[in-house]
């Protein structure tokens, strides 16, 4: 009986660990690559840092506006 309980407990632990591993978010991009791409994002776009400046540019260039509000900095901690 004890052996059965032990075996069942062991199976439960193994299966929940496997499930947890399955459900853990997967890394899409490594830290080093994130750093490289962040630098490119800063240089590949022309960024305004205030809404008013962005609006002036939109009127001058005749384009729409894409404006992000972020908790953090685009080139720093986000």
């Amino acid at each position, binding site marked *: 009986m004890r052996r059965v309980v032990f075996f069942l407990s062991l199976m439960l632990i193994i299966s929940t660990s496997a499930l947890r591993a399955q459900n853990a978010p997967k890394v899409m991009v*490594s830290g080093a690559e994130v750093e490289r791409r962040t630098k490119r994002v800063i240089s590949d776009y022309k960024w305004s840092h205030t809404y008013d400046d962005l609006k002036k540019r939109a009127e001058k260039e005749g384009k729409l506006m894409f404006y992000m509000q972020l908790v953090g900095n685009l080139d720093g*901690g986000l």
Partner: protein
Amino acid sequence: MRAVTLSDAKVRQVLNRNFVCGWKNIKGKKKYSGKSNAHPPTTGAYQVNNCAGHHNVQMFFLSKDGRVLHCLPGYWSPRHFLHEMEFAIKLARVYYSKRLSTSERNDKYLDLHLQHAGSHSASLQRSSQPQNFDKGVIKKTTDDVERTKGFKKGLKTLDQVIHERMAERPFVPFKKFDVASYIKLGRKQYKYKIRD
């Protein structure tokens, strides 16, 4: 967002062609701004669903004179971000149409948002499931995210919720846009271990 979506070549091409771009750090400056862990640019990027981090990132597509065409809260995958950006460009054409009166334009805006939501692929909807830790909070704090009648009961996917909320906000000026109620999609803060 920066390492995946904004780094995508097609996203960059369409964004730069049609939009001027800007960003602002709202940390500690807005009551609705999130308080979750900050990720330095040396931390790996994890796969998450669309709208994850809804209190940390809000992306506005605006007309030249500052009317909100569309808003995407949180992270959006490159493919789905492109899909929504192209939709925002379509809404801009409606906004600038000289053939339509203001009320016709607003009606068309509402119709387009709801039609667009209805046309979302199964893949987009699957990728827009609310995060588990948000589900309980959403049910308690909002009244438009759960279907209680009809055949399909349960929580809506967040891509549906945002289009329904946008449909109620036709061409609102950015400075009057109620971001706090728009991004009510779950918790403002979620602490977790950042793994490199």
